[in-house]
């Protein structure tokens, strides 16, 4: 059975195995399973073994860091010095970043070993990982099904034990939704908690990096390494970072947990609802007080999100013009031809759709009706949460309205695809932290439950998830082919 980060740390510390040995194990698993799962865009074997050797030396000195010798994977949206960073796009198929993202730097500084870069929806635009230039990723629980997106490669890699942990990014649910669909634990922290420097931007006011792992306790370790103020990101927060592992073992008696009635209404698969009810009962048993709340503007979050995210992406993706880096068309006849063909060839259909919608929303004459209106709605959605947090400590609901769907099932229906993010998107609009953890199965596919916290209250989310995982084993289950 694949190990957790916590177990790997213990094994390395006790000398049960070396970092090189465990790294080789993972590389071997990747070689074996990646042809089917397609989780990785790049496998950085040489770097991994070098870093593992260095880690073993550090371990031998008896002075390991938080993640010394622990192998893990990065979503291919984080820039990695000297390694291809494709963002799942043909546009950046030839792009080798000349610098490390802050997240990559933090994790490397903590001693981790980089196994490779994971597959994703192109420029993080998608909820199924079907929008990648490098092809779909298969869900390890059933390879005919999607793993969710956009961080589908990271979620599937952790679920199949091709990596004990991986980084992801979440603009509208891109960590939590694939975590739910693949049966792993993932957390999107408060906006500003993790530096965005070196994360290729999709929706700058929404994007946040975060970890995937096999348990909340592992997520706590990874988030600890990733978090903190970064002077290179003006939107990064200087709020002190909590010790995420410190509170894990504390009880949750008296925690007030609100269930937004809008999250349990029409649209939610009743079988998922029942699975989640059972998990709620468990928390109640541990002393949590459960109550009903309302987030009245939930339905507005999808249209609001799609205006904000697309407006921002239409501008963020302008730099991919074939001039300085990335895909350039052959033999451009003039500047306009260079732009049109480089972008036309470099971007996939969903990216083009979003650039067009975003451009439209920002255009003269439409700005007030779309962008400005969306900003007003965004404030209302944020206010809903603030009102709710006046009376509860955290909010709980499903992560997704249904379990994983078949590859190809929704590709012709973007609106139905967008609805996958109905429960996750409002957190990005409000900037709040959210965690998804596995709480059961429907049709043999994992069900994710979402915990939503107040600003910078990640420690509480991790604590509640950990307490639940102490009395359940959904998070430890592995699809048969990979156990």
């Amino acid at each position, binding site marked *: 059975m694949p190990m957790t980060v916590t177990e790997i740390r213990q094994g390395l510390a006790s000398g049960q195995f070396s970092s090189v040995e465990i790294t080789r194990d993972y590389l071997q698993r990747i070689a074996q399973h990646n042809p089917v799962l397609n989780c990785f865009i790049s496998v950085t074997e040489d770097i991994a073994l070098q870093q593992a050797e260095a880690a073993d030396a550090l371990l031998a000195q008896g002075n390991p860091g938080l993640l010394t010798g622990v192998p893990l994977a990065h979503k291919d949206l*984080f*820039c990695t010095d000297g390694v291809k*960073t494709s*963002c799942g796009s043909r546009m*950046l198929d030839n*792009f080798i*970043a*000349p*610098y490390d*993202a802050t997240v990559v730097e933090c994790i490397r500084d903590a001693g981790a070993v980089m196994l490779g870069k994971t597959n994703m929806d192109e420029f993080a635009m998608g909820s199924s990982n079907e929008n990648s230039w490098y092809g779909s990723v298969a869900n390890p629980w059933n390879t005919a099904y999607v793993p969710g997106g956009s961080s589908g490669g990271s979620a599937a890699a952790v679920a199949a034990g091709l990596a004990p942990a991986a980084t992801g990014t979440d603009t509208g649910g891109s960590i939590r939704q694939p975590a739910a669909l693949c049966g792993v634990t993932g957390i999107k922290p408060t906006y500003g908690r993790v530096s*965005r*420097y*070196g*994360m*290729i*931007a999709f*929706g*700058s*006011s929404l994007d946040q990096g975060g970890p995937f792992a096999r348990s909340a306790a592992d997520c706590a370790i990874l988030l600890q390494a990733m978090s903190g103020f970064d*002077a*290179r*990101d*003006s*939107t990064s927060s200087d709020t002190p970072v909590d010790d995420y592992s410190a509170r894990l073992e504390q009880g949750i008696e008296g925690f007030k947990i609100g269930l937004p009635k809008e999250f349990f209404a029409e649209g939610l698969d009743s079988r998922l609802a029942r699975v989640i009810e059972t998990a709620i009962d468990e928390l109640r048993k541990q002393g949590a007080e459960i109550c009903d709340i309302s987030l009245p503007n939930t339905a507005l979050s999808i249209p609001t999100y799609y205006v904000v995210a697309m*407006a*921002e992406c*239409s*501008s963020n*993706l*302008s*730099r*991919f*013009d074939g*001039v*300085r*880096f990335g895909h350039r068309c052959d033999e451009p006849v003039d*500047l306009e031809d260079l*732009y049109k063909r480089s972008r036309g060839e470099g971007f996939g259909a969903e990216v083009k759709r979003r650039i067009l919608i975003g*451009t439209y929303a*920002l*255009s*003269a004459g439409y*700005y007030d009706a779309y*962008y400005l209106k969306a900003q007003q709605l965004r404030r209302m959605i944020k206010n809903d949460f603030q009102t709710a947090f006046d009376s509860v400590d955290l909010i709980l609901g499903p992560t997704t309205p249904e379990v994983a769907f078949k590859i190809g099932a929704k590709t012709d229906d973007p609106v139905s695809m967008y609805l996958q993010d109905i429960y996750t998107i409002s957190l990005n609009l409000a900037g709040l932290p959210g965690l998804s953890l596995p709480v059961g199965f429907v049709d043999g596919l994992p069900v994710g439950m979402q915990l939503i916290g107040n600003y910078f209250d990640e420690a509480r989310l991790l604590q509640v998830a950990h307490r639940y995982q102490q009395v359940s084993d959904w998070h430890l289950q592995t699809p048969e082919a990979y156990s």
Partner: protein
Amino acid sequence: MTAAAVSPSDMGQWETVIGLEIHAQLATSSKIFSGASTAYGAEANTQACAVDLGLPGVLPVLNREAVRMAIRFGVAIDANIDHQSIFARKNYFYPDLPKGYQISQFEHPIVGKGQISISPAEGEHKLVGITRAHLEEDAGKSVHDQFPEQSGIDLNRAGTPLLEIVSEPDMRSAKEAVAYARKIHSLVRYLEICDGNMQEGSFRCDANVSIRRRGDDKLGTRAEIKNINSFRFLERAINHEVERQIEVIEDGGRVVQETRLYDSERDETRSMRSKEEANDYRYFPDPDLLPVNISASDIAEIRAALPELPEQKKQRYISELGLSDYNAELLTANRDTALYFETAFAEAEATQAAVLVNWILGDLTGALNKAGLDINESPISAAALVQLVARITDETISGKIAKQVFDAMWQGEGNADEIIEARGLRQITDSGAIETLIDEVIAANPEQVEQFRAGKEKVLGFLVGQVMKESRGKANPGQVNELLRDKLK
């Protein structure tokens, strides 16, 4: 057509309306959103870091010094400065614009409404409104002449901080526009926020020009003229554009809203793009940058640290030193000229102020202009000029001889005293010596002496001139005049 009968140069019925957009490059040592250097003239693309290149994933971080400089300008023009200012993205594609958008400001510029007083001609004063001034990053440069069939991109300039100063359409002639531009140029240099170098593009003007029939309240359709890199070209470009617009209208046409480029070689403006072709910039607040908060105490602190500004200096020169309004204006128009004057005046006596100013604004400015030098490059230092002036006021030399001494000083022959000694230019004030010269002149010009005595006053000038000539300019002309009259009585 009857309209054709009207001469295009007949300005009588037309009124010109001009507003200026000035881009002043702020004198910060690093760029507005990155740590790269802003120094001018480095090898292409050596001063462009990952942020300036717009690489995937990089983020802008605001240079606080640029904000302080912008506020300094705002305070100096008594502008409204909001407590929150917001950066916005201006989206358009161009190869020298790395991100595909320029970070600028749109709805909440750092500097709001202000005003400035200009003096387009001696004794004339006018207040010009300043609509706003906002911070933005400069683009890079496209190089079209170095590679056959290809363009090069130099991103050294990309991300250099600019303050765009937008005036109200308050100017009514090219002269006023130039006076305004010069005033802003002077101010930013006084404030030490811009080096004002127009050749290097540190100070650039775009002019919005329209015409309307005198008495009309409504503004005419404007053309924006770009690419003006000197005050002289500003005046010419505007005058040409005004003539063009009058011609268009008088020929029965309409002025179209467009951007025109000034071509200084051909001395004409030509269309660059029309409004229909104009970009929709799709401005929206930049989500990568937080709003800039400016407290009242920040503003107060910056206000307290302001240097004496040209207008204050001018008033002080008038009231304390008794200079004329015109001279005070000229002297303070350029910060370096004012500093030169103040350095010199500190060594001079109070009574020498007027003579000193005449020398600075007259011979010195003339010589500097001729040589194409700035006053701080002057071969004659402020202290050296004071010595020369002292020799005039103590009557060691006459004003006329002083010009000779000045020329020799300019050539580097030494200071005034050394030159006066070496060339023997000391003024003759010994009346005995002068009388000897006068006697000689009287003896040599009996005819003219006769004429003077017969009442022809004008002849005296000729005789004085002869005496001065005999003295090789060294005789004190006042004394010569007096003694000559006595002798001829």
